[in-house]
């Protein structure tokens, strides 16, 4: 029997606390009760980034978002929506608050343009623990395309895209890659910095939990470009679910031959390890992170030399942030012109933000670089909960305080640097 409907249940840590796993088993029981188990697929996915309405239940192909849903709601939703085909309007997530997300879901059906998801394309849509879901959504396609290019062509493509590092400093990614490639060495490393510790920031966690294969694919591509054969993903110890998901992803990628020797019959061989952090904010700094992988106290090194020439165990090392890596496969699949069509001339692409504080909607969004703080607050956060806007802090404690006078400044690396503030990570 063919599957006619698909149910996604959000299963990020916040939804878990609110009982997403119980929801899953209740859905299983109810679907079995109506003899629908073969016709309706059920998947625990990650969230859409809207913690205020979690756990969310999304039903395709109608793209209806229900939330917040409790176990008690499940029998009615299955009976009405899945069995009788009537959408349960009263259980839909508040549309006025979720408009960005609803528009995004419609955009997938080719109707409305809206929030442009590049980094978060798969998050909340695929089963992060099933590599076949990733492959079915263009997964590992970019790796195949990259391996048909020369490393120099590949680096030129990343340079042409204008991608700037999303870890906070905004350094041109292609340039960093070329530094590592141009350093002669018998051994090179690639590291993914997933030690996201800035208070109030959890955009990398959502990518790690929701789309771990995208990070592996990007690391493989970068390894080919710079000539590395070994990689580390340094995930902070507090992100237990992200660590588990990444380990599962690595196992599956090894089984499918995406990791190992002579990948796709090419000269690329790559193995990757997960290193769980042991609780140190400073290890988000890349040289402290390297010290930590080496088994030492996470104390930053003096620079220069930079990791691109003297990194892990003294070898040339490419370190990129999770969000930077997540941009790589889409750039390769769609080209640098497409990437430059998003964002601003000096900061192409999108940026993932977590919105928290005294606003009506706290959530995770992905928007083009260059939108203003006023737009973020009025459009996505649906305005201030009380009083008028006084200040915002970007990118955690090491970011900047943005006063109300800067709320119409475009949020991109260049514009923020010119006014002396930082966009943060």
């Amino acid at each position, binding site marked *: 029997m063919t599957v006619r409907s698909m149910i996604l249940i959000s299963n990020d840590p*916040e939804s878990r606390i609110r009982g997403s796993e119980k929801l899953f088993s209740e859905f299983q029981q109810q679907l079995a009760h109506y003899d629908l188990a073969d016709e309706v697929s059920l998947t625990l996915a990650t969230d859409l980034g809207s913690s205020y309405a979690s756990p969310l239940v999304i039903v395709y192909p109608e793209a209806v978002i229900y939330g917040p849903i409790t176990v008690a709601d499940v029998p009615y939703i299955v009976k009405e929506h899945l069995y009788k085909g009537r959408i349960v309007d009263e259980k839909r997530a508040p549309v006025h608050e979720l408009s960005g997300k609803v528009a995004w879901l419609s955009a997938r059906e080719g109707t409305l343009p809206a929030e442009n998801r590049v980094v978060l394309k798969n998050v909340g849509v695929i089963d992060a623990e099933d590599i076949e879901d990733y492959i079915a959504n263009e997964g590992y396609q970019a790796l195949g395309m990259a391996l048909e290019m020369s490393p120099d062509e590949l680096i030129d493509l990343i340079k042409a895209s204008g991608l700037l590092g999303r870890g906070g400093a905004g350094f041109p990614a292609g340039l960093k890659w070329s530094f590592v490639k141009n350093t002669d060495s018998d051994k090179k490393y690639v590291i993914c910095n997933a030690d996201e510790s800035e208070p109030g920031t959890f955009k990398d966690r959502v990518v790690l939990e929701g789309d771990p294969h995208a990070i592996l694919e990007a690391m493989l591509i970068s390894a080919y470009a710079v000539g590395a054969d070994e990689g580390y993903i340094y995930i902070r110890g507090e992100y237990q679910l992200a660590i588990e998901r990444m380990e599962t992803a690595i196992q599956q990628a090894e089984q499918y031959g995406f990791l190992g020797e002579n990948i796709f019959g090419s000269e690329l061989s790559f193995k990757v390890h997960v290193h769980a952090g042991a609780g140190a904010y400073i290890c988000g700094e890349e040289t402290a992170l390297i010290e930590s992988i080496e088994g030492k106290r996470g104390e930053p090194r003096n620079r220069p030399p930079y990791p691109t020439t003297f990194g892990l165990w003294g070898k040339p090392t490419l370190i990129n942030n999770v969000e930077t890596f997540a941009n790589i496969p889409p750039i390769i699949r769609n080209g640098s012109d497409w990437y430059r069509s998003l964002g601003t001339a000096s900061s192409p692409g999108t940026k993932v933000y977590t919105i928290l504080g005294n606003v009506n909607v706290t959530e995770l969004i992905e928007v083009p670089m260059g939108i203003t703080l006023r737009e973020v607050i009025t459009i996505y956060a649906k305005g201030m909960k009380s009083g008028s806007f006084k200040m915002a802090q970007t990118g955690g404690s090491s970011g900047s305080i943005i006063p109300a006078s800067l709320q119409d400044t475009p949020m991109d690396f260049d514009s923020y640097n010119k006014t002396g503030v930082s966009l943060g990570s």
Partner: protein
Amino acid sequence: MVSDQIKETEQLEDIREIVEKIGSTRADLIPVLQEITNKFGYISQLAIKELSDLMSLPTKEILSVATFYRMLSTQPRGEHIIQFCESAPCHVVGGREVFSALQDALGLEPGQTSADNKWTLLTTSCLGVCGIGPVILVDTDMYGNVTSDQVKNILSRYD
């Protein structure tokens, strides 16, 4: 005393097993220390001495790493470890009141362990689930949107 010796022997055996499983290079030190903390609750002097032999590292080197990372401990800790997020996003949504309720209920200051060895109270930096602050972590159970009057109920789940 005899039982203490048996305990020590058992602990040493476990430590050797952990090192055998994870490895004995310098890069294995932190994963090994994490595993020891998970298994015994803390890294004892005995463990440090044994690791020094097994991994060919000076004891002061091991101690310096073990005391650097927040998730490693060289002090015995209680049966349950309560971690309270003290970062700004939890603080501004009422975290301070929840933390004082927690301290009152336990009679502990951050870093202390109760006399009956049941609880250790720690503060932690951001756990990355700011959408549901204030957040408390008891062992690996996470509680979100916590209010002061829920604190006793949460603790009673561990009776």
